[in-house]
């Protein structure tokens, strides 16, 4: 039996939706005719994609450039041990097609950027932002505004999650508030918690990504009250869930009364990322191979580790631990006579430490370990755990 839109198998699959008051077959048809682009197939993307696919969203696009890593498996429930090293979008596509063969999945194995966003967004109605960085978050916001897409957005940090629906299309044709009405400009890199201070409790993206899926389904099926002009903030430690109201901001640089951003821009630069990278290339570097030779050759040098204690406890290469935040107060413990190799997890914080020490104290003997302890584990000692 078919009803013109759904095959027998689909009617059976979606039966719990079809008998749902205020949803029914009409709601299910709306889901089938909706195309949702999910950006990020990580912690938030996993539950989001699974629920959207299971619910019968007609077409789902997945954007991610990353491959599955061991450290993802603590929260990214789409993936298994066998998937480590494979492109996330390919694994996700296969998994979702197995979950629901009645929908279409499109995979974009690329990093979302100003020069590809129009092409990728083109055929989608709703964008779901599940990314993990500010440049992409502001790019998605601005692109959704310029191209007229609803942005169902979620973000997480440690034990806290946020959900909102931006740029919602109201019945009168106007658009609801967007991300920049809440936060007009991104934080500069120095004020963003670093990767060491970040982290996330594994189940949190499961909760927040599920709330995000719920909002996508509400927008697609036109039911309930989506979080338009509202920001839901969830604290996993207390289970406090608070909803804050916000309105359009006349000073919004994209959609305010006197916009200063009228087209897509360089979002890495907008978030100050370029500046940081430039700074890191200005410091002298040593490769992990050079460090190994110095160690093996009994060369007299000092190794400084600027990560946090909890990172040091996971893995260390016998460096003296002075966290970045304390580095200037402990400058007297750093040698001025012999070469000093400074390292962190991947090389960004150690470059910042060197730049600060050179500027404040005139050090000339500091070298950044290129690629940090991750590169050391990859190229010198594979027995070391990576995180």
């Amino acid at each position, binding site marked *: 039996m078919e009803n013109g839109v759904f095959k027998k198998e689909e009617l059976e699959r979606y039966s719990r939706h079809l008998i749902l008051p205020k949803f029914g077959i009409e709601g299910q048809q709306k889901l089938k005719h909706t195309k949702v682009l999910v950006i990020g197939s990580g912690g938030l993307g996993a539950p989001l994609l699974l629920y959207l696919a299971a619910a019968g969203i007609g077409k789902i696009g997945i954007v991610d450039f990353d491959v599955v890593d061991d450290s993802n498996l603590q929260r990214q429930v789409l993936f298994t041990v066998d998937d480590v090293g494979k492109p996330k979008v390919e694994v996700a596509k296969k998994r979702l097609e197995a979950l629901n063969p009645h929908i279409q999945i499109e995979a974009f194995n690329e990093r979302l950027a100003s020069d590809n966003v129009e092409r990728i967004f083109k055929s989608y109605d709703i964008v779901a932002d599940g990314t*993990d960085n500010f440049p992409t978050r502001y790019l998605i916001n601005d692109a959704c505004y310029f191209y007229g897409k609803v942005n169902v957005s979620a*973000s997480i*940090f440690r034990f806290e999650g946020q959900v909102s629906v931006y740029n919602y299309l109201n019945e009168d044709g106007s658009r609801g508030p967007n991300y920049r009405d*809440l936060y007009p400009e991104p*934080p500069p890199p120095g004020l963003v*918690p670093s990767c060491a201070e*970040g982290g996330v409790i594994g189940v949190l993206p499961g909760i927040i990504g599920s709330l995000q899926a719920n909002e996508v389904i509400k927008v697609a099926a036109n039911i309930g009250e989506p979080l338009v002009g509202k920001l839901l*903030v969830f604290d996993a430690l207390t289970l406090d869930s608070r909803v804050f109201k*916000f309105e359009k901001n006349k000073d919004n640089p994209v959609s305010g009364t006197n916009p200063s951003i009228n087209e897509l821009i360089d979002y890495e630069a907008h978030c100050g990322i370029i500046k940081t990278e430039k700074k890191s290339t200005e410091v002298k570097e040593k490769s992990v191979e050079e460090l190994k030779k110095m160690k093996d050759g009994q060369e007299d040098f000092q190794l400084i580790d600027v990560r946090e204690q909890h990172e040091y406890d996971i893995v260390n290469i016998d460096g003296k631990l002075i966290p970045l935040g304390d580095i200037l107060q402990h400058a007297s413990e750093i040698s001025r006579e012999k070469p000093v190799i400074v390292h962190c997890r991947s090389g960004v914080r150690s470059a910042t430490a060197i730049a600060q020490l050179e500027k404040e104290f005139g050090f000339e003997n500091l070298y950044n370990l290129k690629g940090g302890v991750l590169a050391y584990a990859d190229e010198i000692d594979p027995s070391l755990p990576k995180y």
Partner: protein
Amino acid sequence: MARIIIPTPLRKFTKDESTFFSSKKNVLEAIEELSSFYPEIKNNLFDEDNKLRSFVKVFVGDKDYNSLQEKDIELQDDTVVSIIPAIAGGTGK
């Protein structure tokens, strides 16, 4: 005393305390009192011109502080002031 809720990303500046009680009757004064008590938090809340940073939002109850007409809205004993910064995940970029 009004209660200020400190968000997770800023708790490293408040010795992991999640709340701060202020006897001030004005929102900005209460946040400034918080900044005086925990000086390291100040740079994350206010810019060089002592204005709230563009990636930090303050809500009084469930209302956006910036959109309230009465800027010097009086804080009551049961008022909850929430500081909500933009968060983007754990990559640190």
